[in-house]
Structure formats: C-alpha cells, structure tokens
C-alpha cells in the first residue's frame, strides 16, 4: 500500500487507528502528503525514514500534539478533531515516549508516574503509587523511586518515561525516536523494555532507526520520505527485498 490510495480496503472491528488521506502543512511546507494507515489492535509498527520525512509529525498527529489540516484520524473509534473532550479521551488511551524523555524535573520519579493516574484517571493516591511501583519494577528501576530525574542517567530516565506512560494503562504506545538521544550502552536497556512490552501484546508505533528492533519485533515496517509512505511491508520482505529505489538507498546507508 502506498500513500496514493485514499481508501482502506480491510474492514475489521480490530482497527485501533485509522488514518485516512492525511495532509498537514507547516506554513507552506507540506509535511504530510496524503498518508493513509490502518493499525490493528496488538500490531507493532516501526516507521523509519530520513529527517524531515514527517515520521515524527505523523505520530504526533495521532495524539493531537500537532493538528492536521485535511483528512481524518480515528483513534479507538473516536474521531480526532478540535473537540477538546475527544482529544482528552484519546490522550488517556495513547501513551507517548519522547526522544528527550521530558520527565518533570521538580517531581520525584514516583510522583512523575503517579501524576497521570491521580489527576486524569482520578485514582486514589495510594493505589496510584502502588501501580507506579509495579511499573517501576517492570522496567527494573524501582530503587530510584524517590530520586529526581536529574539524578538519573539517560537510559534510566527513558525507562522511567516508558513506565510513566504505562501507568495510564494506555491502549496504544507511541515512541518518537526513543533511543536516539542515548549512549549505545543504554540503548539496549531501553530496547529490552520495549521488547518486553511488545511481547505482552501492546499496540506500538515506533519511529526509530533501530533496525534490529524492527526485525525482531515489528509486524510492519514503514518507510517515509517527503511526507509520504513510500514502502510498507513485513520486516522480512522490507529488509530482504525492498521494492522502491529510495528504500534501497536508505537501507544501504543505515545498515552496515
């Protein structure tokens, strides 16, 4: 499926994200050019591509950190428009992990994690803290609960960021280049957490250059360039026989 077709052909109740003919401009720059994508529950998608191709913008449109001008986005049956109520409902179900972690520096790790459940899901404080400790243990960082983000290393902060999103028990997790700001040593610890998450059946959309991760865990790999999805396939087909020249060029540059 390329970016030109504007009608999705499968119909199934399992669709969790439906993007239909999406266009977005930053001023005059046409950054998303007719994107259509359907993501099914439990699916793991890796999006790769050169800088400026629109991959981060695409996933940021899914939780309305960016507004699209044309086209339709449906998340878990709710349409993403300017309607604030819908946006907030969608954001409760979509977790996001950023390249630069974005932990709240004035709160302890435990407070960082408990904040969402307490204030958005209205969970009592004790229960929120128990959930927080559970997820901290899951990402192997429970002993740092009382520390502040500034006292942790990059890899630890990113794992905390993942745990923070998980505390909201989202249906979808978006990752915007989660390991791009990390030392090579720390990349593995974060990828391990993401692989664990994948094995538990979380729906994940990951923008990343970690091709090893894509090969081992992704259901589909997308290649984007100039705001369009150039190629979309299972990892085996994508890496072994890429069909477009642009994809071949890109892969030859990043795989050694």
């Amino acid at each position, binding site marked *: 499926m390329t970016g030109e077709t504007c009608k999705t052909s499968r119909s199934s109740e399992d669709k969790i994200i439906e993007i239909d003919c999406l266009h977005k401009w930053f001023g005059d720059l046409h950054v998303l050019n007719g994107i259509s994508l359907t993501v099914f529950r439990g699916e793991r998608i890796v999006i790769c591509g050169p800088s400026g191709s629109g991959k981060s913008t695409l996933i940021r449109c899914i939780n309305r*950190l960016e507004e699209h001008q044309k086209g339709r986005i449906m998340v878990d049956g709710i349409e993403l428009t300017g309607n604030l109520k819908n946006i907030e409902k969608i954001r409760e179900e*979509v977790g996001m992990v950023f390249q630069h972690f*974005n932990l709240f520096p004035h709160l302890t790790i435990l407070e960082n994690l408990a904040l969402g459940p307490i204030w*958005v899901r209205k969970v009592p404080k004790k229960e929120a803290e128990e959930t927080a400790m559970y997820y901290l243990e899951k990402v192997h960082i429970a002993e740092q609960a009382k520390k502040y983000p500034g006292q942790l290393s990059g890899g630890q902060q990113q794992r905390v960021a993942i745990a923070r999103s998980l505390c909201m028990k989202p249906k979808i997790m978006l990752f915007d280049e989660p390991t791009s700001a990390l030392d090579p040593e720390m990349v593995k610890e974060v990828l391990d957490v993401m692989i664990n998450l994948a094995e538990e059946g979380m729906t994940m959309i990951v923008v990343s250059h970690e091709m090893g991760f894509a090969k081992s865990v992704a259901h589909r790999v997308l290649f984007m360039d100039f705001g369009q999805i150039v190629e979309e396939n299972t990892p085996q087909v994508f890496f072994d026989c890429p069909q477009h020249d642009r994809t071949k060029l890109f892969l030859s540059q990043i795989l050694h």
Partner: protein
Amino acid sequence: MVKPGKNSIQGEGLRAPVIRIGLLQWAKTNLFNGVLNSILTIATLFLLYKVVPPFVRWAFIDSLWFSSAEQCRAGSGACWSIIPANIRFIIFGFYPHELHWRPLVAMIMLVALLFYSKNRDHWRPSLGYIWIAGLSTMGILMRGGLFGLTPVDSDKWGGLPLTLMLSFFGMFAAYPLGVLLALGRRSKMPAVKTICVLYIELIRGVPLISLLFMSAVLFPLFFPEGLTVNKIIRAQAAIILFTAAYIAEVVRGGLQAITRGQYEAAESLGLNYVQKMRLIVLPQALKIVIPPTVGILISAFKDTSLVVIIALYDVLKTTKSALANPSWMGFSPEAYLFVALIYFVCCFSMSNYSRRLEKELHT
C-alpha cells in the same frame, strides 16, 4: 588510610592539598599584584580614610541620642534625638495617641504571621485559615468599632502600619493577578490575549504616581453621587494594578523558559489546561523567576512612599512632617537615615528570604 568509596578513582583516594595563606600573602596576591591594582588599592584606602572616620565621629562619637533640640543644635554630631522625640508620630502618624497599642499589636501580628509562613513546612491549607483569622483581627484592631474598641477612621491611619498594609496587600494581590495576566497573554483566545496585552502595556506605560493621581481624582468622577470609596482602598487598588503588570511580564518570561517538551509531556498524559499549568508548568516557571519577581516586590514596597501625593501619611511622609516642626528643623539627615534603615530592614529581609527560598527549592 583512605577507604575506597564512590568518589575515589581507581582505589587511590588522593585528597587535595590544604594550602594556608597568611593575610599578608593574601593582600600581596589580591590587592597589590600589579601597578594598576596597587594604585586602586591605595586610592580606595585613601577614600576610606577620608570618609569613614568623619562619619563614625559624626554618627556615633559626637552624636546625641536622647537630648533636647537645643542641646542638639549646640553639639556638632548627629542628632539622633530627633528620632526618640518624634518616634510615635513617625511610626503611627495621626492615629490617636492613647490608642497606639492597637496598630502596634497589629504590626507585631503581621510580622509574626510572616515569620511563621517563612517555613515551607507550614504551607498547608490551615495556613490560609490562620491568615484570614489574623488579617481580620488586624483589621478590627485598626478600625475599632467592635468589642468595645473605639472606632478610628481610616483617614487617621498612617506611618509604618500604613506602609506595611499597602505593601503587603499590594504584593499579595498583585502576584496571582500577574500570573493570570501572564497566562492570559499567552492564551490562544484572541479576546483574552488582547485584553491582557492592552492592560499590561497601558499600565506599564504610565508612572505609578499618575495612577495614584487618577485613583484619587479621576475615579470619583465615575462613581455615582454619594458613593465614596475610601482613599486608602483606591491607593491600594492602584498599587495592586501597577505591580501586577510588571509581575505578569516576568512570569511570562518564566513560562517561555519552560521547554515545549514539558508542555507536551503533560498534554500526552491527558492533563487539562488547569492541571498542566498548576502541576507542571507554573511550579517550574515561578521558581525560575524568583529573582526578578522579588525585585519587583521590593520595588513595590518602596513605591508605597508615593502615596504622599494623594495626602496619605506613609512612614516617609510622617518622617518629613516631623522635620517640619521648627524645633527639629535641620536634622533631616538623621531622620531620613532612620527611615532608610526601616526600609532597608524590610527590603533586606525580603531579599534574604528569597535567597533562602531559592536555595531550598533547588535541592
């Protein structure tokens, strides 16, 4: 033997050598380590020699502290006696003489409450109630009319209680108003944004004195016949509105300093606008701008002296009036030094507290 610990590198814990420098050595390396520095040092020492001993002689050695005006004129030193002789007028203004205990108790209560609130452990909801009770008591003490206290019209309020009242309420109300204005100015809603911009730019464009004039002269023209608003309240409103505009801009700077990622992380978690600002953005932004905010508040404290223009007797005006007395005329340096000391004590305490607060918040 040094035990290997977290800070030792490769097991060999080496400590930095301790160097003791004598005073002469220090003076040689810091004050006389070159021609220019030596010249500056000598010039400074000479200046100090010219200024300090005469001042000390005037202020402390030859000075008179509790004498009468005639004895002061006969002497050559500072006449600090002007202060004890006029202290009650300087501090309390025209407040009835026999009732001075009331503003005194009110001021002590205010200072006590402020000291209590200094400690961040006390920042609980109960603190709000304590303040409300305290402020009501202070109001009753000053006003009278209840509990058998003789009523004292607010026209008679003056001196230090008036200065403290105008500055305290000024700061207390201007700060949240300023924060709201800053948030409003950054809002995407055009009406809110325009109103906030207009307010801030108009208020910042005029001196406080002109606002005080307007509050005293212009606003009564708009009020219906017979409705007169207390002059102190009008002055207080002018001070609040003025200070809020400056606080707004400083807070806006702080809001801009918070990286977009913080806003986005808060939004991704599903926090709404109020939660995002209250829990994530404002705690960080307000902390960053403590230095300029305290600067504005200190200025606001000193700006209360401008109410002299609308015939309110703050502590500076009462001091000036004490000097108008023919027997004490001519001793203005002593009187103004005293009132400067009062201002200094208050402003320095605020400054000191802000430094302590910053230190605490950075842990």
